């Protein structure tokens, strides 16, 4: 059993907006291309050109429907590590390979120490762990630790790859431990929620629910002349209409 560090003030994480995610997979493939040559790379792909194609992805988008018929909704749900405050994947690790950083809360795996027992994958209720069968070690979202502090990258782009590439502005990155951060304010404003809080792992990432549909007035035209029912031939209305350029 690996112990957790004293919780730090800084809780880096993602805020994912289910109102605008269209399921385009940009976050998934951009994550993969960044990370396959990144800190935890490679992200290998088994049977890439035959049956049973299956690779390591730190970020996956699931699509499903909620509700019946027209009242229902098609939901696109991006899923990656939630960087929990009390992550079971860390405490379950027999070697200490799985760890949580005190300075920013990022959950990582030291692959040199990982024995590939996959207990962490069993422990994680969110399915966020990705086993690299090729190397026999566990891998996972690093929150792009090699981007977010990277001074070789322009400051505005020092965010996880999934955030910088998202065309629908559905992904936001920041310090959820700071109530004044943009992401914390966004969560407060939009009623952001955590996934399965009842399990007690205190995920850092938040999801924003779909907004309510805006109301548009569909009543009768306010300044219309006679009601349609009073007109036998609506064309006649136009005979005396004075229009000019």
């Amino acid at each position: 059993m690996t112990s957790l560090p004293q919780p730090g003030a800084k809780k880096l994480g993602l805020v994912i907006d289910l109102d605008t995610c269209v399921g385009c997979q940009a976050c998934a493939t951009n994550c993969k291309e960044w990370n396959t040559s990144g800190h935890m790379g490679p992200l290998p792909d088994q049977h890439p050109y035959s049956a049973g194609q299956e690779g390591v992805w730190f970020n996956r988008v699931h699509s499903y429907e909620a509700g019946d018929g027209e009242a229902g909704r098609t939901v696109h749900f991006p899923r990656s590590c939630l960087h929990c405050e009390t992550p079971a994947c860390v405490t379950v690790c027999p070697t200490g390979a799985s760890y949580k950083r005190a300075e920013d809360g990022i959950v990582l795996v030291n692959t040199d120490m990982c024995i590939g027992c996959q207990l962490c994958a069993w422990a994680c209720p969110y399915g966020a762990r990705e086993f690299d069968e090729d190397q026999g070690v566990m891998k996972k979202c690093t929150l792009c630790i090699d981007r977010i502090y990277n001074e070789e990258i322009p400051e505005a782009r020092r965010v996880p790859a999934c955030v910088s590439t998202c065309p629908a502005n559905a992904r936001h990155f920041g310090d959820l431990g700071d109530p004044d951060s943009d992401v914390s304010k966004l969560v407060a404003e939009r009623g952001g929620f955590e996934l399965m809080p009842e399990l007690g792992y205190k995920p850092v990432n938040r999801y924003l629910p779909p907004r309510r549909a805006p109301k548009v007035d569909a009543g009768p035209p306010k300044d219309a002349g006679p009601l349609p029912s009073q007109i036998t031939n609506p064309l006649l209305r136009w005979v005396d209409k004075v229009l000019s350029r």
Partner: protein
Amino acid sequence: MPADGGATDRIITSAPIGDEVKTTTCYMCACRCGIRVHLKDGRVRYIEGNPDHPVNKGVLCGKGSAGIMTQYSPARLQAPLKRVGPRGSGEYAEISWDEAMEIATGWLKHVRETDPRKLAFFTGRDQSQSLTGFWAAQFGTPNFAAHGGFCSVNMAAGGLYTIGGSFWEFGEPDWEHSKYLMIFGVAEDHDSNPIKTGLAALKKRGSKIVSVNPVRTGYSAIADEWVGIRPGTDGLFIMALIHELIRTDRVDGEFLVRYTNAPWLVVRNPGGADDGLFARDADGKPLAWDRARGAILAETADLSPVLVGEFTLPDGRRVQPVFHLMAERYLGAEYAPEAVAERCGLDADRIRRLAAEIADIAFNHPLTLDIPWTDVWGRKHGTMVGRPISFHAMRGISAHSNGFHTCRALHLLQMILGAVDTPGSWRYKSPFPRPIPPGPGPAGKGAKPNTPLAGNILSFTHGPDDLLVEDDGTPLRIDHSFSWEAPLGLHGMMHTVIGNAAAGNPYKIDTLFMFMANMAWNSAMNPLETIACLTAQEENGDYVIPHVIYSDAYFSETVPYADLILPDTTYLERWDAISILDRPIGSSHGPGDAIRQPVIRPDRDVRPFQDVLIALGARLGLPAFTKEDGSPKFKDYPDYLTNHQRTPGVGPLAGWRGEDGSKKGVGEPNPDQLKRYVENGCFWRHHLAPEESYFKHANATYLANSKAMGMQGQSNQIVLQIWSEPLQKFRLAAEGHGAKQPPEHLRERVRTYCDPLPIWYTPLEQQQHDTEPFPLSAVTQRPMAMYHSWGSMNAWLRQIHGSNKLYMSRERATAEGLAQDDWVWVESRSGRVKAQLSLMEGVNRDTVWTWNAIGKRAGAWMLSPDAAEAQRGFLLNHVISEWLPAQTGPRLANADPVTGQAAWYDLRVKVTKVAPGEEGITDPLPTMLKPPPDMPAPPDILRYDVAETRR
């Protein structure tokens, strides 16, 4: 206590991404986003969106981000190939480029010297059409087109003949100001990143998004309201909205009289040669009926027109304003919501509510921007006032045989609302608007040996005289475009080329030359029939299509059917242009164009297709590609891009023209032009001044500047066309007027469908066969992670979409005794295909659908034959016929009767459970394709990691 992993974990947080970064333009779809390609030791480390680029502003979609796997695909062709076995056998010999060029030159030279029409040159989703089309005209064949005819020509033609612009490359919603957006048939496509970014911006501002679509996926999934309409009935729904707006008097009369032909007078002379044409003065200028002065020039600045009534001109002709005819038609009971409701699969009350919502936004919430501007009459306005309601539409309404009129109806709806290029509404992307319709008719008449055709092959017909037909009405083009079968066939009809060539209709060809078009598989209606045409032999054993040349970068399903393969580079390995002469990257903020530069050196014996084409042009002695001494005029494509001038001062790229690079649009060639593009991130853009930003069809400043930059030849007002006179001219011919007459078997068809006002009709295919046994509509869409993605096999993307199922409404399926994951036969009038079923809520109950182009033929793309794509992936194409049901007379394309657009989505099917034992694998299952020689063996495991050495 275990050790602390963090204490010993080596994390390099500040490594350089790569050792080099180059900008270029993405080509994973047609969206033309700017990308930054990071390289490490000569390999691609990372591709990201270019934050400075006007199209994508730094974001990049799922396809673009998977470009690495397309770049390093094992399916990349390695060297030129010559067929040495029967077509389809896959027997090829590698040959040198010298030999390949000699073979191609030999075939093409003979064709050009004898009958250039016998070259059919068709390119796929080709972004170099300003070169390929020009090359075809120089060759002298009218038989050129790209993939527009089977994609969205209805959309393009509907828009360009109505408002002088269209959706997608021609226009966009005012993302910054719209308060309501209604999208039609926009599943996951056209265009990619700008729509996603735009939808997010609209939602952030609290604007309402309504998606009209039989299927609730993609953009429809995040719409505030999903309208699950029946396929092919969008036009009827739109006309019902128009009916409601006119009935309740929610019409922008001021907009109509200023900017449209609503006040123009139409001659009423049933049976006469001028019936339905505009009443014009001696100079040919249209007339309107002024309240005080009677008939005067419609362009008169202080016109106060009467829009309703019937008048007599001094010469005795009876006339009525366009508005009268339009309003009369759509007030008709057949367009009332209750009359269309059942057919559309929607409640009448809901249609009325949507009309009321649209009207509320347009008329109760006008948007005023404090921007002064000057109109074409020279009058200065202190503000710009707009209707903040916008529309966007795409293939879902376009790919029907009634799609042209549906698209026109949508533009009519925009005009009635006064929502064309105003603040908050749909806006033109520069260089649009263009005159309606633009320019001279299509080139293609009088093709002769060794002689170029003058003009553009794909241009705009203005009436019967512009058609490309013999005196007896026989088409001049192999695809029958611009004939009476498709008088407005402005993107060609690629879907008919191979069938017509095999049938010798209207004549046999010698050489079929194709570029990046997978016509033996997912780009064909009925691929097995297309393959039969490609392999058909004469009695003496010769192929009916004697020569097939194909250029592709990948081992696609079409490769085995060509005699000569010219292997292309990938998009990261070549120069290219998103040319101002074709469909550039302009936006509502101003014109722009872009280039691609090579960022990777090819590791195979391949050449950029455009270089090859230019070299072939020189070998064939095409005048524009040859110097006077017969030597090549251009070294390669970059040389052409820099130095070719279509007209003096106008070339493929508009930026940094002139010797010192100081000119925009028009200017002498600049030897450093490409360098300047590269320095600027591989794109050029010009920002319109605020006073030019809206009302571009009638904005004096915009129109004058647009002309000065060479974007168009004139600066007159572009009057939006509710009543389409070119269509009426075709109709008059069908009524017996004029020298150019349609053949008898098409007369009634031309008369019916060349209606000068938008109409709705049951799709042709459904009119012509008994649909009773086929109760379901069947449609397809590409998934968002693959839309328009021609290098269609990608190691990462195939993990997301490796096979496809047939989706059906749960309620409907349950009622028919079908369950999730059942294997079913999908049967149409022309065939059947086997698929696995998936049930869902978000689909119209009379519709089934699937993802397109997931299914692959076994062996193709270097996939192993057990791949899911070949075993469980299926193409709905197998049950779509390229021809309408058998009629008397010559066969006709399953296409729009006005534009020739392939009517993919008119399909009707029945779905039944397979017999026990038939489950588990799709059908038809054509034989496995044999790969060309020397293709690399695909790996069993991929460990892509270019930074390995760093860690």
